[in-house]
């Protein structure tokens, strides 16, 4: 059909009524945040500390150097704040549940640093499947984490010891060449 023939058809098309609930029409379920935690629901999964992707560091020296649970929470929140504003990687975080992300990341860091937490989040592979993360994205996140740790005065050697726990997880996180 030629383009000009289409024009009258377009003109007689009726505009859809404004009142139509398209989510309902297409069966989209509305996600409701948990009134207590403020998190969106996720599909069920097996909870286990092994989902954290590494064994905790031994001893409590590292937890101290990170300022205990309070320091770790500040570092995680700062890292997330930096990352969701970072033009290099912000788009990857768009539309994801930052409330849950902050909680699970805190648990994971706290668990890995042996600061007295259990990790209740998903494993690294399923958390990052389909996000299309590449190595430069990983580098950007590492830089943001380094900055958050530096601002809290975590000694560089301790920063690296923690990064040594995370670096091998790139195999589950970086899925796109």
């Amino acid at each position: 059909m030629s383009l000009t023939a289409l024009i009258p058809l377009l003109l007689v098309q009726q505009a859809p009524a404004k009142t139509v609930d398209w989510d309902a029409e297409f069966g989209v379920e509305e996600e409701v945040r948990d009134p207590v935690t403020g998190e969106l629901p996720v599909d069920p999964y097996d909870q286990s500390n092994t989902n954290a992707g590494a064994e905790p560091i031994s001893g409590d020296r590292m937890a101290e150097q990170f300022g205990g649970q309070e320091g770790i929470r500040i570092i995680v929140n700062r890292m997330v704040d930096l990352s969701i504003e970072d033009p290099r990687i912000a788009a990857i975080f768009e539309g994801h549940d930052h409330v849950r992300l902050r909680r699970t990341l805190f648990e994971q860091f706290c668990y890995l640093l042996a600061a007295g937490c259990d990790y209740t989040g998903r494993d690294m592979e399923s958390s990052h499947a389909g996000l299309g993360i590449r190595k430069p994205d990983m580098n950007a996140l590492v830089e943001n984490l380094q900055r958050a740790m530096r601002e809290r005065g975590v000694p560089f050697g301790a920063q690296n010891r923690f990064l040594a726990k995370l670096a091998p997880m790139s195999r589950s996180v970086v899925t796109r060449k």
Partner: protein
Amino acid sequence: MKAPPLTALLASLTAIASSQAAAQGDETAAPPPPAEYNAKLLLTNGISAVDGASGGGIANWATIAGRQSDRGFGLQAHATFIALPDFAYQSQGVAIGIADRMELSYARQNFDTLDVGAALGIGQGYTLNQDVYGAKLRLAGDLVYGAPHMPQIAVGVQHKRNLDGAITAAVGAAHDTGTDFTFSATKLVLSRSLLLDATMRLTKANQNGLLGFGSVAGGGYSLQFEGAAAYQFSRRLVTGVEFRSKPDNLGLGEDDWFDLFAAYAVTRNLTLTAAYADLGSIATFEDQRGAFLQAQVAF
């Protein structure tokens, strides 16, 4: 010898890099492409070794030049100066990194014999020159990520063309050109903040090729070792030691090389290195120890 038109080379390489940048706008699906430039963590492109390849100062590493991601093109250029008691060494070069997979490098080495030139009867301040063309391919592994015990592994080839064939023949070298083959493994051991490198080099070169290759008396290829161990004090500062073994094809008492270096990433694009280098005996002049200085820009 006249210096090659390095500025022209640099200009055309920059043009290639920027046309590549323009070609990056093709991805429409989220997430948008990350910055393909300055995509590496600080210092992980290495400094520029005397042969022009990414590495330490005297040792070749498995690192790939340039700050590009695993897609873009990167560029690295350096100037190095080594002040020795009896000689002055100077080199400059460029290297392109392709997708953090391959590196192509070129370096021009100029070795000024100062007063030794007069003593040896080749002329006061006679300068030995050499061109080094290199290629390196990353085979496996990752400097920072992946399995902790799996280093980044690369193979390299360096074709060296000494431009003073009369001198290399006079000292008894068999050739004025030669090709080195390298095999390197390098890893940043994060848990200890240590960067470790081990490289095997198959070479005929006498004093890195500045005194030619092999010997008319029969010295051919030999397998040499070079390596580095460095401690990362901060994202920007790394200090360490390097070693490079060398053959003595000419029987002039050629020594292994050592250095003690500090590299500082002033910005993402500028790295300054200062080292104390011990190059041993050169052309029978003993104890050539001195300061190594390098400025490197990388994109």
